[in-house]
């Protein structure tokens, strides 16, 4: 048997629906149809009345989730694409994210964001907007990179008493496979050493972890031992694990698929520069997408986002210093 990242997300939701009567799913086409990506396939049948089609009203979808959370439920909202969450943005950042702090009443909702680039996705079906959510106080922002994490982090997210922005990478949906679902996992909030090394730390998250790992494999043939840190969660951000890795390697490259200005990579580098300054023996570097909308044509797209090759090139520059 082999389980994809997408299967893992479906299974985690099935698990949550089974285990917790407070859970329901609301999103466009998530019901009988099973969702645009099939992440809720058959769930409407298996859990009647608990997996419901929403109108094309992202603002109201999130508002409804907040109300249901106030009433003690644990809604999971599927955005059809992360890019469309911009029209539900206000309810996420100003309604859901402020509720607990203002009232002491918690707001356990999950907003699932199918995000990230795929070939031919173009400017409005490819965005990586985790940073805009991480910037606002009151949200937990998760970015699983593996099948196992997609499963375990989504299950854990349901138990979190706060709004969780769950960023699922569309490129990994069918691309990434595992043999079985995990029975244990690192807790949310902890980064993972995805590969051990001593010459350079590459910090990445979501799909970029795999580009980093591929680059590390390539660089290994050149004699370099690259450590790869998978952040798993971008807010909170596990600064300790990152800094401990940098302490071992002395060098840092941070890779993100998002736009450069104020992205995860800026935040990571700022933290390491402030808190782990003495550990670095070369300038920390970032590798991000270009600062333009995400292009449609694959030729442009592969140049726009960091690839294993680009990661390896950036890493070599640091290593040769």
């Amino acid at each position, binding site marked *: 048997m082999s389980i994809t990242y997408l299967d893992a997300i479906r299974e985690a939701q099935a698990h949550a629906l089974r285990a917790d009567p407070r859970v*329901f799913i609301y999103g466009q086409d998530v019901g009988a149809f099973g969702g645009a990506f099939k992440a809720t396939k058959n769930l409407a049948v298996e859990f009647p*009345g*608990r997996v419901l089609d*929403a*109108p094309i*009203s*992202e*603002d*109201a*979808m*999130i*508002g*409804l*989730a*907040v*109300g*249901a*959370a*106030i*009433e*003690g*439920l644990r*809604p999971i909202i599927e955005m059809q694409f992360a890019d469309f969450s911009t*029209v539900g943005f*206000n*309810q996420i950042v*100003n*309604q859901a*994210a*402020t*509720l*607990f*702090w*203002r*009232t*002491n*009443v*918690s*707001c356990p909702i999950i907003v699932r964001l199918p995000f990230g680039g795929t070939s031919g996705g173009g400017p409005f079906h490819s965005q990586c907007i985790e940073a805009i959510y991480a910037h606002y*106080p*009151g*949200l*937990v922002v998760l970015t699983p990179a593996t099948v196992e994490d997609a499963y375990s982090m989504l299950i854990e997210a349901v138990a*979190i*008493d*706060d709004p969780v922005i769950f960023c699922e990478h569309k490129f990994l949906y069918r691309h990434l496979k595992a043999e079985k679902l995990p029975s244990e996992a690192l807790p*949310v*909030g902890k980064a993972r050493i995805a590969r051990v090394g001593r010459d350079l730390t590459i910090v990445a998250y979501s799909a970029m972890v795999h580009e980093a790992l591929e680059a590390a494999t390539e660089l290994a043939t050149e004699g370099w031992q690259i450590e790869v840190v998978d952040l798993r969660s971008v*807010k*909170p*951000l596990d*600064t300790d694990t990152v800094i401990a890795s940098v302490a071992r390697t002395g060098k840092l490259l941070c890779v993100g698929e998002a736009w450069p200005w104020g992205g995860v990579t800026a935040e990571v580098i700022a*933290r390491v520069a402030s808190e782990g300054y003495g550990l670095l023996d070369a300038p920390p570097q970032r590798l991000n997408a270009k600062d333009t909308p995400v292009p449609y044509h694959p030729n442009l797209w592969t140049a726009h986002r960091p690839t294993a090759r680009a990661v390896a090139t950036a890493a070599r520059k640091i290593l040769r210093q």
Partner: protein
Amino acid sequence: MLQTVSEPRADGAAGSVAGAQLAAYRFMLKARLLDDKFAALYRAGKIHGGVFIGKGQEALSAATGVSLKKTDVFAPLIRDAAGRLAFGEPIIDAVRTYLGSALGPMRGRDGNVHRGRPQTGLLPMISHLGAMISVVNGVLFARRMKGISGSVGVASLGEGATSTGAFHEALNQAAVEKLPLILVVANNHYAYSTPNSRQFACADLAEKAVGYGVGSHSVDGTDLAACLATLTEAVGNARAGHGPQLVVANLLRLCGHGEHDDASYIDPKLKKSPLGRDCLKVAEDFLVEEKIADAAQLAVWRSETIREIEDAVAIVQREPAPDPFAEKWCAIASVHLGETHE
């Protein structure tokens, strides 16, 4: 015989029509005097930020509040002191929030009209207009899912806020889900300074209902008895399972947008029209005329209420302000997931 009620009842079950009118009137009075107090405190420089009052809109607001049961849901807006009181919000919650007391429901973190207690069904508004309606939907949706039946939810709105996408999405959502939502729109003809002619182009906002497939009600918002009758009907319809109800009340606000504003933009013709009547005065005349209360009784209530408000203010003014050093500065409930980094 005069009916006297020592404490106004905040309960949709309030026996007779006259009893409900009386109860609602007393919340109107309380709200007016409370608002007057906040305005005075504002002028005295005792309030941080703005003061937003509901002068002229108390009949609608009180009628809304008394039409609800305590187990219902209410998302008031900035001009809803009366409805809040009728729904059960204690005066002291309002005072504490305006003065930023650490003991208030918002603990000094949020202020003025942004108060509520979600646990009691009183939702604390965020400022973004229209945003609370779908939250009411969510509570109603969840109750249905949990098998709790019989409760309804009200969201208040100004006519200006009907121009928001949030209003539209939420009303449509309620209609699709057939939720027991009552959307109460106070058409006071101005959104801050903006007249209706720059806000919408339909003849009557109540006409919007048909496009959503929801119930529709229009009412003279200066007339308490009319407001009560309309709200009772709308709430009853929703409670009976007839789906969302849109209530549009015509009225004027008899104050500025906030206490910083002299509202000089309001058309004098409108002020002189029947819309410009003071609903509190109208209600008092009505109660006296219908022999539900007499002038002496009204005067007693007024002075009692003033005392009650002064007492609350006096208490709150001695209460501790929030202490920034005691503040944990953590925006999430899952403390273990809080960012330690600054």
